[in-house]
């Protein structure tokens, strides 16, 4: 279909990330100017750069615009239920520890309905990489307030402006025990790619928050322009501050944006802790669990 419409220049090199995408599902559903696609591009490049056996990488999403990511990535991919990507991923990982498991979903999905799972997977240090796209809003359902909507911003369910304090997600992730925590924006494609690559290389619960424009529902309603305007804003207002106290990495409406790699540490994963503990407890009778 698409070929009929577009003049394909055969001399053009093919996009190197195509092999990471389900090209047979294109075009995707995201709006023009949406930041989700940009983050997917970063993810694909991160996969390209990390020497992972792609047959052993699985991606799990919940529900939402970001939740659709799993459907476009050419890996074993699971589009589950709203908020529940993390417990699904927990089961998948613990059933088959040789898999690298990535959870890729929205801010509402992972921290509202899925908040409980998020904090517990971080606490247990289940070995997975969580990529959270924060567009400050519920996209798929039409722009309702999210736990990440900044104070005073409007949403369809806070038409007079939001008066609820929002989450500082890096602080939440760190305080629950995540071993890797970074925040970038869809403008910072190279940093984002690097962060995802680092997160993938990490053993344990690694967390990358990526701020992304939702021009259709967040920017427009809040008179912030289109996707490009949002990217410009990210560019101009971001301050890279690595290794800071995540407590200070909060976000405000149209204020400065703190980005960077905040946490990078080691801690036994759920499986390592279990194997070590039972190894001591049962001695030779215990064979380490490898799935």
């Amino acid at each position: 279909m698409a070929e009929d419409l577009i003049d394909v220049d055969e001399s053009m090199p093919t996009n190197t990330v195509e092999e990471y995408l389900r090209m047979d599902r294109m075009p995707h559903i995201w709006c023009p100017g949406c930041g989700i696609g940009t983050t997917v591009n970063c993810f694909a490049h991160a996969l390209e750069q990390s020497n992972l056996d792609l047959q052993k990488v699985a991606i799990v999403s919940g529900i939402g615009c970001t939740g659709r990511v799993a459907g476009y990535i050419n890996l074993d991919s699971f589009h589950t239920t709203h908020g529940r990507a993390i417990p699904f991923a927990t089961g998948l990982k613990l059933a088959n520890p040789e898999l690298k498991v990535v959870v890729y979903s929205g801010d509402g999905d992972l921290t509202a309905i899925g908040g409980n799972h998020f904090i517990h997977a971080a606490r247990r240090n289940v070995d997975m990489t969580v990529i959270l796209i924060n567009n400050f809003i519920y996209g798929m359902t039409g722009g309702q307030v999210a736990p990440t909507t900044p104070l005073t911003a409007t949403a369809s369910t806070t038409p007079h402006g939001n008066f609820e304090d929002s989450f500082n997600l890096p602080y939440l992730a760190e305080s629950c025990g995540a071993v890797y925590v970074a925040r970038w924006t869809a403008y910072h494609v190279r940093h984002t790619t690097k962060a995802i690559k680092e997160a993938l290389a990490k053993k344990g619960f690694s967390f990358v928050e990526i701020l992304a424009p939702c021009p259709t529902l967040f920017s427009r309603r809040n008179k912030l322009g289109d996707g490009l305007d949002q990217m410009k804003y990210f560019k101009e207002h971001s301050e890279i501050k690595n290794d800071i106290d995540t407590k200070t990495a909060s976000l405000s409406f149209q204020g400065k944006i703190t980005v960077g790699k905040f946490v990078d540490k080691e801690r036994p994963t759920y499986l390592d802790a279990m194997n070590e503990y039972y190894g001591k407890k049962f001695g030779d009778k215990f064979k380490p669990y490898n799935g």
Partner: protein
Amino acid sequence: MKADPKGVLTGAIFLDGDHACAEGAIAAGCRFVAGYPITPSTEVVERIADRFPLIGGMFIQMEDEIASSIAIQGAVWGGKKAMTVTSGPGFSLMMEHIGLAAMTEVPCVFVDVQRGGPSTGLPTLPGQGDMMQARWGSHGDYGIIALCPNSPQECFDFTIKAFNLSEQYRVPVLLMMDECVGHMTERVIIPPADQIDLYPRRYYDGPREDFLLFKPDKDLVPPIVKAGDGYKVHVTGLTHDEKGYPAMTVSAQEKLVHRLIDKIKLNADKIVEYKEDQVEGADVVVVSYGITSRVAIPAIEQARLEGMKVGHLRLIVAWPFPEKRIKELAAKVKAFVVPEINYGQMVHEVERHVAGKARVELVGHGGGAVHNPKDIYNVIKNSVKG
């Protein structure tokens, strides 16, 4: 395929139903259990937690039932046989994921040790109030299988059966226990591993280029693969085509959902199971399930002693319901008597298939105890009179 001897505690052991269920799961090859404590089901996961470390199983106490009910589905895609265990309130929380398992055809077992409800109800006391929820609790249309053990022995046997059926039909299978069965202790015979037949998971073994994740075989059930096998599957709870890709059309919905229903409906003769006692020539047939099937026996025996012709049909598989048999009997008997520890659930199904050809009498009970057999006897007696 036979059970792995490593997990099978062959012999005659005194076990309560919950522990017997745990042993059944282990014998069935279940090596992934996720759960969240709730009376009266907790002993199942306690035994699993105790037994799994030395037999290579993974037990995880999740943060809630919602997490448990989807963690097991991740585990199935990771290649494990998996189960979760709960009671009414947790069962309610799991409903969305019973739908997901039905939609994505994940073979897994949900155990519900029923207690009195609604809401927190009677945590330590019996009920049978989740039977309709088992059939219809998740949104949308789908087929399901539910089994009703009435003894610790059956908790063991039916847990194995639940796993076998779930593998055979790629559906979530529900083991509908109740507090009495879960907590009663009786002798359980655990056969040697080589006498326990297991239905092996049907992995795809056709040519790679022909692979379609949801392309059914003749019996309407598609073979499965697991993550990491290189098929790069896409699995979604959205309506999907045979490849697994979302397909938001009326025709895709019709094709998929119809098959999900048909794979149980058209195979129902193979799945349905019940036990009959003196049903031929009976004036009244008692239809029972779970613990109530045992409580009904003294009532039936008393009535027979007094010369009444009373048959007993006990549901072993509650869903799919033995509708053919009920229809046949409806043409011959005066009445059906349905005792259940609720105020009318399976009785609706009996009524539906009897369709006015005989009387149908509920012997209801709000829960918290089993029936007094006298109450069942009285209804039998009145029904015989016609």
